[in-house]
């Protein structure tokens, strides 16, 4: 079993805006591309009947029928939430899974991973995937090899999914700093924890969709009763507005 750090100096993470995510999957393939190119994310049977590759970030769409009003579709991006009380770490028999004290990122040391799958079983969010050919566990690293690479332009020292998101629905920053942009967003928009009852204390937050389908503007008052006055009356009144 592996221990969690008693204290993190900061807690990096993502804030994902469900009011803005259109479910375009851009973050999914940017993540796949970056992590494949940097340390390999394989695909089994890529052109066959049952293609199955490792993806560290997936987007699901759900149909929701509220008690009142129109049905809705919610697009929901899902990746590791870098929990404070990460059960995937404590369950790991080899110490391969660990949480960094310097920035709170949860990582896997692939050299020590035996592919037992306990961590994937322990994670209530389904955020870990076994690489189908390497048979080691893969997960979101918050693009640790981008965010710490000072040879990249500063604006690119962010996770690939955040850099690529066309609607700007993904935000990256230090959630332990109440003044950070991500913390302010969480505060302003009522950002919430995913499945708080699991006791994992996730670091990533989701911003809820705004209330929908509430068209409330009062109907326009007719200029006058056209049926009574006829078109000529309407025209006079209408053009009388020009002066």
């Amino acid at each position, binding site marked *: 079993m592996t221990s969690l750090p008693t204290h993190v100096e900061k807690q990096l993470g993502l804030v994902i805006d469900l009011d803005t995510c259109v479910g*375009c999957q851009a973050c999914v393939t940017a993540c796949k591309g970056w992590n494949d190119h940097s340390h390999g994310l394989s695909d089994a*049977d890529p052109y066959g009947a049952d293609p199955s590759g490792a993806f560290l970030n997936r987007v699901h769409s759900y149909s929701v029928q509220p008690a009142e009003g129109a049905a809705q579709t919610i697009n929901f991006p899902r990746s590791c939430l870098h929990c404070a009380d990460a059960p995937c770490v404590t369950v790991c028999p080899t110490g391969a899974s660990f949480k960094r004290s310097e920035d709170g990122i949860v990582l896997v040391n692939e050299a020590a991973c035996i592919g037992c799958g306990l961590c994937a079983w322990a994670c209530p969010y389904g955020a870990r995937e076994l690489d189908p050919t390497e048979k080691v566990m893969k997960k979101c690293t918050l693009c640790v090899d981008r965010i710490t690479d000072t040879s990249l332009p500063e604006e690119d020292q962010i996770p690939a999914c955040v850099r690529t998101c*066309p609607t700007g629905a993904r935000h990256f920053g230090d959630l332990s700093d109440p003044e950070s942009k991500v913390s302010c967003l969480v505060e302003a928009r009522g950002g919430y924890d995913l499945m708080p009852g699991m006791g994992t204390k996730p670091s990533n937050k989701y911003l809820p969709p705004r209330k929908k389908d509430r*068209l409330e503007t009062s109907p326009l008052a007719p200029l006058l009763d056209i049926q009574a006055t006829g078109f000529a009356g309407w025209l006079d009144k209408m053009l009388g*507005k020009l002066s």
Partner: protein
Amino acid sequence: MTETQIARTTCYMCACRCGIQVHLKSGEVTYIEGNRDHPVNKGVLCAKGASGIMQVKAPSRLRAPLKRVGPRGSGAFEEISWDEALTLATSWLKPLRETAPEKLAFFTGRDQSQSFTGWWAQAFGTPNYAAHGGFCSVNMAAAGIYTMGGAFWEFGQPDWERTKLFVLFGVAEDHDSNPIKIGLGKLKERGIRVIGVNPIRTGYNAVADDWFGITPGTDGLLILSLIHCLLEAGKVDLDYLARWTNAALLVQEEGPEKGLFVKNAESQPFVIDRRTGMPAPWDGKGVQPDLGAVYNGNRTVFQHMAARYLSPDYAPEKVAARCGIPAPRIRALAAELAEVAFNQAISLDCAWTDFRGDHHNTMPGRPVSFHAMRGISAHANGFQTARALHLLQIILGTVETPGGYRFKPPYPKPVEAHPTPHFVTAPGKPLSGPHLGYVRSPEQLALKEDGSPARIDKAFTWENPFSAHGLMHMLIPNAHAGDPYRIDTLFLYMANMAWNSSMNTAKVMEMLTDQRDGEYVIPRIIYSDAYASEMVAYADLILPDTTYLERHDCISLLDRPISEPDAAGDSIRWPVTPPDRDVRGFQSVLLDLGHRLGLPPMVAPDGSPKFKDYADYIQNHIRRPGVGPLIGFRGDGTAEGRGEANPNQIEAYKANGGFYQAHVPEGARFYKPWNMTYQNWAVQTSFYESPQPYLFNIWSEPMRRFQMAAEGLGPLQPPDHLRPQLKRAMDPLPCWYPSTDEAYPVHALTQRPMDMYHSWGTQNAWLRQIRGRNFLYVPTKLWEAHGFKEGDYARLTSANGQITVPVAHMAALNENTVWTWNAIGKRKGAWGLSDDAHEAKEGFLLNHLISELLPEKGDGQRWANSDPVTGQAAWFDLKVRIENAGRREASSPAFPPIPRAVPQGSARAKGIR
């Protein structure tokens, strides 16, 4: 560790043309991300763009030229050399050019080099050239040009920074993809309301604050009802209408020119000046056009418009049931439009002078904006529906004002500034001008002297007079039917006509292989594609294209540019990695073929090729004096817009990130059609040869001229059987008429996912893991009524056929509509996939249910399933009957596997490395 190189070029994973940074190690592509400096995507990139690496490495890539050696469709090909391939093509095409150039039909699908391929076809002399716009979104483009000089996407876009209300009509995820998403993100950041009008609530409609789950094909009726409400309440921008539109022109009430504008002795339309009550030139300095004028009994356009839409026929209560939207919601939407346009108006402190010479100290704006593309277009009433949407924007005074809709250079461009179609052929001679254009009156139709169609697709005929993009979906059926005539060679580029790009797919496959007297009815087929698509099996000669990272291209202002409202823009592609196969960029191949055929613009005076390859053409072709394919770095490298050819132009583009922008001057950013600073800049930058100010066409004279002909007026008369549809559809004011088949109860639609581009995505190892399966999505009411359970299949029947396909339940859907993702279903053997791939087993197309022709009416005519104005394929008019077919293993119809042109793809073991 090898150093990473970054090459900046242009994406081609869809039609959006974003800037990309391709990471390379030792020449190998390792990663693709967005280019932050690029005007289209500003650094972001969609799911397709980031997956381009899997397209460049796809096993489906064709490897060498192929010549058919067995029966067509048998897949018996042999690899041949390029010299053999081009010698063979020349031997087929040269005699056609010398005797009957129209016997070559050259159609180029999702081509991004239409100003080049059109130029080639013009030099060959065939009238039979177009790209895919006729089966895509020509209604939106053409209705925009005829109404206001531009439409959405490449023509213009919402003022994302300033708009305070955004209304999105129909499926729009498939065009202008990243810019719309970036725009939506900006609106969401500012807390601006987004309203979606769409039968299906996915994608952009999922984040809409309000959703109108409209009945397909009734968008035009809803829009005209909104116009009714706005007129009824007096909430229209009268000043805007009087100054910038033809609302104050006078319409002849009677006589042989009934419905045309009243003209003066110089044949110019005029207005009544409110200051004097007397006639005055429409463009005279200080003139205040009177919307309420009556002159010799002739009323203004404004009065005709108001009388039309104030009719109770357009009241919300009257249209609600048909549109599937309760009347109070229609009234509330109209009220919200009025509230934002008129009570939340904005103004920029920016002085400008209009074409009348009148000076303005500010730029007032009505911050309501709209967007629509294919969703409302792909109906047989799509042209008039798109026109209605443009009219709604115009009466609110939002077009080209701050916070509204903004043109992108080279637009605005009035219909008069566009060419008319050229189609007259002569053996051995080029056409006298471009094929495609904008018809203004019957004498400009592409008809031969005997009145028969000059073009194989019957574009620009009485059946569809304004078919500005041609009718690619009619090409194969007409060529097979010999209607209007027989052709010899079908030459296609990037168009999967044997599968998802055709209506009535199964029938089209039969047409391609049909024989008469031992000869193929369509005698020869040449096809160029980069990948082993379904169409490959049906060609006689394959000219394998490169992928987009292995080629030169230019995204030209002569064609479909990448401009922004504040800057004209163009861009290039260049080979960031060399091809590892015996393939060539199609445009370079066309130049070689053109030289072999002796096409004059492609032959140097000494008989050698005029252009070495496409890159040479991009830099050195001169379209008209000083104007070439690219506007940047001309002449000595500093000239913009106009200038001599520059042999270092491509290098300059590469150094600039692959693109160029010419910025609109500060005082020219709004009111472009009427703003003289803009007009003069547009001339300087080569979009016009002289300033082209104009009025928006609320009343369309070109349409009225066709309607008049249908009424029996004028020397050129349509065939009698087409008179009713011309009278109805060529209404000079936007109108609505039903377009769907009432005999079937359920609407059936497709939409393209944001992570796939027609059939291309399926060969992509990553994208097919995201969307390798498609289901028929069924709304709750139908799901329950038919007792569907998860795992069931539905049998869908239309007037054209039957399919049996897997279902899934979806709540956020119009209650009488079913839908699926477009082009997921594949033919076994294509695209390098295994025969048991989901796409080839359970995956399906709706195309089998849709015919390019309407059911026979017993009059011997072939009635097109198209818009009668433009000929746009009416994909979204499909109606079906649905039944529960219980559990199944595979979709039907299923077709036998097509023999493989390339081997099946194998494992991608570990990463890119």
